[in-house]
């Protein structure tokens, strides 16, 4: 482990700082005492690398900070560093993440824990910087843990949880933290920064054990295999992903105990759902206008709630299906697209349809494509979507998928 330059005294307490979501992730790198960080600039992720560079330059973070010559190398370097026992961090956005794709595919197979921040950004072309979730979602089938956060505070906390879960021997998988470009990466808000001693209590040293790539532990990683090996190896990832659910619950419980901040159900947040008839579901910062709209509608007697999914992988199938079965209709807001998919819906909508399929109570599900390319999801948008969900609840015929907020 690298040595943290800052010496800490016994009387440690949280302090509040005005920082952006990107800066919160950089602060988490410092608190986690990360050993190797690689960088390659692309908006909006690049704000993280700037803050990390500043921490290193100021002597606050003692790590190998490597600016690679491309995203592919960026992710390869941390993969190898992690194999050699280093705690690592990197990240990217949009097409930068796609350029790293070969490295992204091999990392989970080798059971490499690494934490990456994906500053969610629309894929080029056309060149656009605004948030869409398709970039991070591209790895959804490959063995990456995937989580979305909606505040800078949650970004910091979740990064610490991500190292804890990813580096657990039962998991050993990479984890990508989805942070909506602009709304989270570039907006400064008040964040409680915990003292390093709390973090040390929460986050044990990364111990790679018998998988450590080291001369004292002679191993070969990733030899060539044929059809008589691969299914068994894939099964390892399947089991690791299943175990991650348990490890996640443990981590959130410990986090609450040590940091005093409770996230409730780790997998998703429920907002005003107790007596709700219909709910909206979504990921990331669209929670903000949705919550404002829910409060407005509640004042007018509309019984609507909101479910914000955090962990997309592992997907909380049973928990989410049980929760959503309680309502008369469900509207899923996707900040992504899946062209030619069932019902031409968003990715999240189809995952939830699948999760609900085995439930005895299957409420009607309406899919909404909204806020693409960073377009604001507005309160009127949310009112419009809620009205469509309520109609579906009343048994009125509805489309499977609506594009909301498009000029037509």
């Amino acid at each position, binding site marked *: 482990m690298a040595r943290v330059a800052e010496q800490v005294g016994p009387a440690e307490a949280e302090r509040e700082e005005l920082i952006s979501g990107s800066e919160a992730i950089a602060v988490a790198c410092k608190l986690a005492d990360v050993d190797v960080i690689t960088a390659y600039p692309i908006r909006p992720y690049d704000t993280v690398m700037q803050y990390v560079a500043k921490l290193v330059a100021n002597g606050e973070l003692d790590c190998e900070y490597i600016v690679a010559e491309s995203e592919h190398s960026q992710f390869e370097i941390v993969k190898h560093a992690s194999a050699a026992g280093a705690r690592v961090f990197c990240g990217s956005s949009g097409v930068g993440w796609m350029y790293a794709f070969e490295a992204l595919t091999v990392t989970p197979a080798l059971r490499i824990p690494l934490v990456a921040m994906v500053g969610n950004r629309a894929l080029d072309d056309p060149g656009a910087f605004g948030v869409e979730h398709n970039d991070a979602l591209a790895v959804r089938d490959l063995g990456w843990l995937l989580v979305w956060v909606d505040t800078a505070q949650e970004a910091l906390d979740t990064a610490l949880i991500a190292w804890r879960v990813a580096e657990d021997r039962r998991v050993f998988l990479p984890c990508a933290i989805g942070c909506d470009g602009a*709304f989270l990466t570039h*907006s*400064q*808000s*008040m964040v409680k920064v915990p003292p390093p001693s709390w973090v040390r209590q929460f986050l044990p040293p990364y111990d790679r054990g018998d998988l450590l790539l080291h001369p004292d532990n002679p191993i070969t990683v990733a030899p060539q295999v044929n059809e008589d090996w691969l299914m068994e190896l894939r099964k390892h990832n399947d089991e690791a992903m299943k175990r991650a659910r348990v490890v996640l619950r443990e981590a959130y419980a410990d986090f609450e105990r040590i940091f005093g901040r409770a996230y409730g159900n780790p997998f998703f947040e429920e907002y005003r759902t107790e007596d709700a008839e219909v709910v909206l579901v979504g990921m990331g910062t669209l929670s*903000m*206008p949705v919550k404002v709209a829910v409060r407005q509608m509640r004042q007018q007697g509309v019984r609507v709630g909101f479910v914000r999914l955090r962990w997309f992988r592992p997907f909380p199938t049973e928990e989410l299906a049980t929760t959503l079965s309680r309502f008369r209709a469900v509207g899923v807001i996707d900040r992504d697209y899946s062209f030619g998919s069932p019902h031409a819906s968003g990715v999240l909508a189809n995952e939830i349809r699948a999760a609900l399929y085995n439930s005895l109570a299957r409420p009607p599900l309406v899919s909404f494509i909204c806020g693409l390319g960073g377009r604001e999801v507005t309160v009127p948008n949310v009112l419009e979507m809620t009205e469509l969900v309520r109609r579906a609840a009343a048994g009125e015929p509805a489309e499977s998928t609506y594009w909301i907020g498009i000029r037509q």
Partner: protein
Amino acid sequence: MATYSVEVVYRGIFQKTLAKNITRGIVLAAVKQGKTGIAFGRYGDSPERNGIPAKNFAIVADSEEELQASMAQYEPKSVDVTIAVDDTLCKGVESWAWYGLQPINKLTRPGGYLLVTTMLDFSDLLRMTHAREQPYNLAVVRGLPSFSGLWVYKDDHTDVRVLGAISRLLPDLVSLGAVEAAIRQEWKSEQKVASARKAYERVEVMAVAPGVGDRRKPYEFELPRWWELREGVTIPAIVSGEAFPDPTTGAVGGWRPARNPYFKKFSTRTMRPVVDFDTCIKCTLCWLQCPDSCFDVTPDGYYDANMEACCGCGVCEAVCPVDNCITMVNEAAFTSNDSQWAAWKRDREAYRVWVREKIQHRPERSHGFQQRGQYERQIREMAAAGVGGAGVEGVREGGPPGGVAAAGS
């Protein structure tokens, strides 16, 4: 229970840190008063180009719940204060983030404030600023527009002076005491605290009645519907250009390149070239070197900087081999984008008088290479003009504000 919104309109790159300091300072001061807040830039403005208008925002609320309405927005729909940290922004802003010219006071709520850092008089500012249908207030913090370079921040206390002024205009948003506490926390400077306090005492305000100001309608752009767009992320190219007539002889010739009619960029300009056509030797260097191809070739072979396309970079002045043929002049000294060459053709003597008058208004802005030693010169000028709180020793206290006066064209 209240939410306050503040926007800082600034010049990309040159005032990036200044704008960030102001919005951070507002939120930190609000937190000192038990409120909460967020500070953010308008995402679409970035990556910033030199001088292009950009925006930062600070939203302050009593509770996290009230703040949520603002936390996933690009910009507020209306603001309590619009801060223009460069007075030429009052002519309106067209940023990377949108098409069309936005009046500087577009988001200012009725009865709200437009706060400008300037040495200009109220009447000169109002001549540049678009008229509104609702009343608002124009407030002024005396000082030269604060411009920095790409990697340096000119710490001339403009940030804290603006904070001090805001606490005077909207004490319910942040009190002077809270501003002082925030400055001590963020910058640990009693000098900066003193500067904020002076600005609090000296900020000047006037009420602006409906209809007062530039009544011209700013150019607009309507976004197309999805089925109106050409498929394949394809847009029509700009056609090449055309010859145009001499206003005195009617002879058609020269070449005016066609330009993007939707994104004009000229609100980037803080100074413009004034050309003395009597001394021009038609060497072509300004036309060749202009990074924005803003020069029209006239039918008689001169090069006329088209003010609908000029970004005010000053390269033409730098490359011109003739002494005093091209002079960069403070953009605040002009109220129209009309052709200088056409005016010269119509009446050469009147044009000579006009040029002599204009070139007195030297720009006080830094555009990199052109302005070495500018900061030191400015500090001396501000001290001579009695502008206190410039943050350096030897700045004289008291005295009336003065300095550069603009004139209409």
